[in-house]
């Protein structure tokens, strides 16, 4: 049981990193990035290939993953600067599908739909599974803490204020003298870097990556997490991620209470519970569990 809780918390940590990355891109800067799974995949594959194919240490793999995802994010946002709202959404969604297709079809590089097994994890094999889960969980929490600290610091700074201005009205922000393009590229790159970090963490924790992991369902869960937690609120992103994992995992334990269901019905019921809880939480707290509040200004201190 403890091992399960630790593993689940580790997954929650991965989701939290994803939600924090999305929060920078969407929550703070207002760019709808439906391509989370793509950046997640880039990070996961980059680190996996660096450590498995090139034999580099894990930490180097993670750095490469962050850099790679951030660079891809910068490039993608550079190419889509004048797209707004849902138009950006479809392009990023397409981006992540293209990444998945490449992962599945470019067998020479990615080993195709077989995926890459045997990705090293820190001290995996030397530790018992329980100890390994505990270590992973601790490491991920440290990463989440660091990411939270960093993005929250950005949010409170004038940098975050400029991002929010751009999110609310790009033209007015430009007229206010804010270099809108540079901000958008920066925000996208920072967020994508976090998504890449999440991917690398996932790869090293589970030891396996394959194209099937990076289907849009994951992106959906993260958007639900951020919305439930509170878009634009750094702590909300983390809480939302934990909340979604709580629903995803908790629903497993509700389903057996209903007897006489077929396999498909039981699974369907579980997903109905997942979807309804998310709708319910949005109905009860439409602004998210923690609503976005303007950072406290120095004036009141």
């Amino acid at each position, binding site marked *: 049981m403890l091992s399960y809780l630790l593993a689940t918390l580790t997954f929650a940590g991965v989701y939290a990193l994803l939600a924090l990355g999305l929060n920078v891109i969407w929550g703070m800067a207002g760019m709808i990035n439906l391509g989370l799974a793509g950046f997640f995949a880039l990070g996961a594959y980059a680190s996996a290939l660096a450590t498995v194919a090139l034999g580099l240490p894990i930490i180097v793999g993670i750095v490469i993953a962050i850099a790679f995802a951030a660079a891809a994010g910068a490039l993608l946002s550079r190419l889509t600067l004048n797209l707004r709202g849902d138009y950006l959404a479809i392009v990023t969604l397409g981006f992540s599908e293209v990444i998945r297709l490449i992962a599945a079809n470019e067998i020479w590089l990615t080993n195709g739909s077989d995926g890459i097994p045997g990705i090293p994890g820190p001290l995996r094999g030397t530790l018992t599974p329980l100890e390994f889960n505990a270590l992973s969980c601790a490491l991920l929490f440290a990463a989440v803490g660091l990411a939270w600290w960093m993005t929250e610091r950005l949010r409170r700074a004038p*940098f975050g*204020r400029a991002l929010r201005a751009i999110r609310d009205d790009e033209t007015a922000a*430009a*007229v206010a003298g*804010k270099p809108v393009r540079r901000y958008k590229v920066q925000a996208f790159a920072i967020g994508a870097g976090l998504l890449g970090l999440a991917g690398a963490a996932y790869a090293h924790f589970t030891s396996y990556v394959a194209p099937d992991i990076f289907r849009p369902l994951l992106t959906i869960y993260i958007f639900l997490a951020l919305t439930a937690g509170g878009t634009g609120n750094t702590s909300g992103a983390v809480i939302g991620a934990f909340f979604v994992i709580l629903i995803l995992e908790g629903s497993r334990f509700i389903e057996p209470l209903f007897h006489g269901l077929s396999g498909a019905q039981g699974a369907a019921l579980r997903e109905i519970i997942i979807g309804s809880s998310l709708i319910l939480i949005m109905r009860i707290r439409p602004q998210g569990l923690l609503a976005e509040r303007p950072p406290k200004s120095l*004036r009141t201190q």
Partner: protein
Amino acid sequence: MQAGTITGLIGPNGAGKTTVFNCLSGVIPAEAGQITFDGTQITTWRPEQISQRGLVRTFQIARGFPRLTVLETLLLHGEAQPGEDVVAALFSPGRWRKREAELITRAEEVAAQLNLTHVLDNMSSDLSGGQKKLLEIGRALMGRPKLILLDEPVAGVNPTLSGEIAERIAALRETGLTFLVVEHDMEIVARLCDPVIVMAAGAKLTEGSFEEVVSDPRVQDAYLGQRA
């Protein structure tokens, strides 16, 4: 336009005054012709480049940031805030906090002048119509511009306050600022503007001192009516 003047731009509704502002500030690209500001060609510049260069504008139909407070909106327009750079924001909070404190003082002054002090913590979209217009002016005052384009700054503003704003504009002109003001309130135009440019149907009709232009019969017909 001459530096250090307050130029008035008047003309019938739909004459193209706001469109002129849109071109000057880079919001919509000019199709032909050239715009020169402070000795530099800015015809094809992007809006942020133009305002960084010192040419700022206000909007006729106020554009608030729905999720920025009034104070934040003012601070956003403060110049030389190092914390707007990502690296400084992350690693040298001391530097930007110091600047922030200065900007807050400035913002409070500006707000006081515009009767906005008690709504500083309101979201900038949760303001009365007139307060939104005042905030537009506040935005222009927060930066360190050289040329300010004001699009109907006092439409919807209480007359007593309009008078104060006019005084403030005149005082700023003394410090070397240049203004281009679109306004339908003739009292304000008369008090402030010299020269006055009259536009009609997208072209310049005439230009001169306020007295000169209002005595022009074409201006009376098209614009002033019996009120001249």
